[in-house]
């Protein structure tokens, strides 16, 4: 029994290291989302698209409404490739809080806060 103690301690320590390494990998891929597209607005400075979802499911008990940003440079699209088309249901993952929508008005570009930046998205048909 006493002989196994060092191994048990080592197992515990390594398990903790492994457990704490998992969230960083998950957050790098993003959090899950799903929702119905109701409108879209071009982000004219950042060359991205703000897609408004109503409802927007973010994995918790509360259903919200709001925009997620689709980027042609960093979002991976999946079939049916109808990102941002009103009336389509879309699921994927997103990076919360990423400032990815800048719009031009008057003298300069303005950052508009969004729910997050899509990292991947798949869509229904029309």
């Amino acid at each position, binding site marked *: 029994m006493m002989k196994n103690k060092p191994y048990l301690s080592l197992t515990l320590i390594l398990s903790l290291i492994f457990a704490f390494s998992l969230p960083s990998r998950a957050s790098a891929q993003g959090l899950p989302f799903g929702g119905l597209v109701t409108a879209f607005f071009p982000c004219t400075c950042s060359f991205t698209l703000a897609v408004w979802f109503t409802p927007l499911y973010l994995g918790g008990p509360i259903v919200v409404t709001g925009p997620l940003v689709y980027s042609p440079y960093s979002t991976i699209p999946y079939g049916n490739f109808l990102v941002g088309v009103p009336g389509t249901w879309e699921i994927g993952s997103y990076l919360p809080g990423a400032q990815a929508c800048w719009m031009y008005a*008057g003298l300069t570009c303005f950052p508009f806060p969004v729910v997050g930046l899509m990292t991947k998205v798949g869509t229904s048909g029309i």
Partner: protein
Amino acid sequence: MLIFVVAIPVSFGFLPGVQSDTAAAPGLRANRIVLFRATPFEVRPGSTITLDGSGFSRTFNKVYFDGEEPVTAISTTGVSMKVVVPRTLSNGEHQISVTNSFGSSENPSQPILIKVTDTPSPPPVILSASVSGDVVTLVGQGFSSSNSIFTSLGNTSSPSFTTAQGGVLTFRVSDLSMYQELKASFSSEGPHDIALWVYVQGEHGANKDPYKVDITI
């Protein structure tokens, strides 16, 4: 004998050649330089401004004022850098552009401007907001009758201005350019609570950070 193999994420950023010279803003194309804004809008010659954008170099950028007066600057983040406005710059508005190994940020359809003056004024500041029906009332400093409102639901160029309490602006949510489209999409599901992000822009620039107003559509 038990053998454990654990994969621990490591960064190789310290190795030469692995770390990129530039970083792109979230969602923007890599290897492309974009300039979003320069703050503050009004500055004295010789003072420092902050540029926000994407693809700024950590080692070498040139910042131009109306295509002239190049100033060298570096960015530690790739998305922001500080630049000193040349003392030789004349009073008035000047268009800013940045160049580096990726090319130029110049975009004739979306010029990024600053105004050089010996007597700069601070941009508008929103101190508080209230909502009654579809009317939003903003209380703040630096408001004037020439202000425009930019929001996450579009723009309105005709807010009502009064000088009471140091400056009050009012506008209708239903006057915002994207309101009707969003309202129509909500109509079958009843009212929704959403965050409206607001900027006030005038002759002295705009508030740097958006002000959040909770509204129901």
